[in-house]
Each structure stands twice: as structure tokens, then as C-alpha cells.
């Protein structure tokens, strides 16, 4: 009986931790790729100084598209 409870609690904690990890991983995927006319590509990832300046209008655009 006790073992069953412990197993259930363990499973619940594990799935919650997994969900948080997945969410964090998805958030860390936020990135911007800029293509310039000389053929160069600049990737701006989360944590870069310029990222927030670019990610906020992008989020706004996505939210506007989805209504």
C-alpha cells in the first residue's frame, strides 16, 4: 500500500519535472536568424543583448496573427 503511494507520488513528481524541463527547453529555442544581402547570416539567441529587442515585436506579430 505504502509502496503504491510512493510510486504514484514519484510518477507525479517525475512528470511535473519533465514538463518543466520541456517548457524550459522550448523557451531556450527562441532565436532570430537574420539574412543579409551579402549572403551572411547572423543568429541571435536568447541571452544576447539584441534578442529581447527582436523577440518582443516577433511575439507581438505571432499574437496578432492568432487573434
Amino acid at each position, binding site marked *: 500500500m505504502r509502496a503504491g503511494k510512493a510510486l504514484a507520488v514519484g510518477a507525479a513528481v517525475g512528470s511535473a519535472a519533465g514538463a518543466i524541463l520541456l517548457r524550459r527547453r522550448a523557451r531556450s529555442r527562441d532565436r532570430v*536568424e537574420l539574412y543579409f544581402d551579402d549572403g551572411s547570416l547572423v543568429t541571435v539567441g536568447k541571452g544576447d543583448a539584441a534578442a529581447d529587442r527582436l523577440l518582443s515585436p516577433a511575439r507581438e506579430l505571432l499574437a496578432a496573427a492568432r487573434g
Partner: protein
Amino acid sequence: MAQTADALAHLTEISSQIDAAVVLDKEGTVVAATVDDERAGRMAGAALELFRRAGEQRGQELVQLDVALEGGSVFVVRDADRLIAATTRSEPTVGLVFYDLKSCLRSIGEAPAEKPKPKPKRAPAKRRTTTTPRSRTTTRKKKDESG
């Protein structure tokens, strides 16, 4: 305008990844969109701001950009004097989306501003009537050798 709307309709038809798209000019005026006017205006404003800020990153001219976000992706592509902004689901095929957006912009750019005047029709060439002498088949009666 109608040509742009047709191009956008074709875009959403051929690309299942694109959820919404808007074509705007460099001032942010909506030319055509796949969403209602209110949403299109908000999308255009955000796209122009995003493109402007992104263009400040380097001295070079920005051609296109994509932003991968948690709930989907955002694309902006620039043509000579137009921009197209589109949104997709998460993790789209980036190259394919860029290709479709560029094709859409190109097809809008290729649309003739006004219908070219039809060429004046040439007068039909006069038909020469040549009279060919009919070859007559005459049957001559053999002269009667006796007569």
C-alpha cells in the same frame, strides 16, 4: 491589390505551414492579408518594427529573417519595395517557407501595373490568286487513216 490578394490566396493554398500572412509596403501600409483588417494592421506594425530593429544589427542590408518562438515561427521577407510577413506553426521547414514567401512576392512584383496596349492588327495580306491553266485532257480521235 486584387493581384496581391490572389498571390496570398495561392500562397496559403500551396503552403500548409503558413497560418497567416500579410503584404505591406515600406511605410507599413497593408496591401493585402489573409486575416481581417484589424489583425492585419497589428501584424504589419509588428513586422515593420521587427524588420527595422533587425536591420540595425549590421551595416549590410537585411533581406529576410525568421524568428523561432515557443508557439510558432515568424518570417519576414523583403522585396524591392514590399515586405511579406507570415506566421507558421512550431518548427517549420524554414527553407521551404522562405521559398514560398519569395515566390509570392515575386509574383506580385511581376504583375503588370496596367494592361499593355494590344498591338494594332495588321491588315490581312492580300491573297494572290493565281490562275493556273487547267490541263485539259482531250481525247483526240484518231484520225482515220483511211479518211
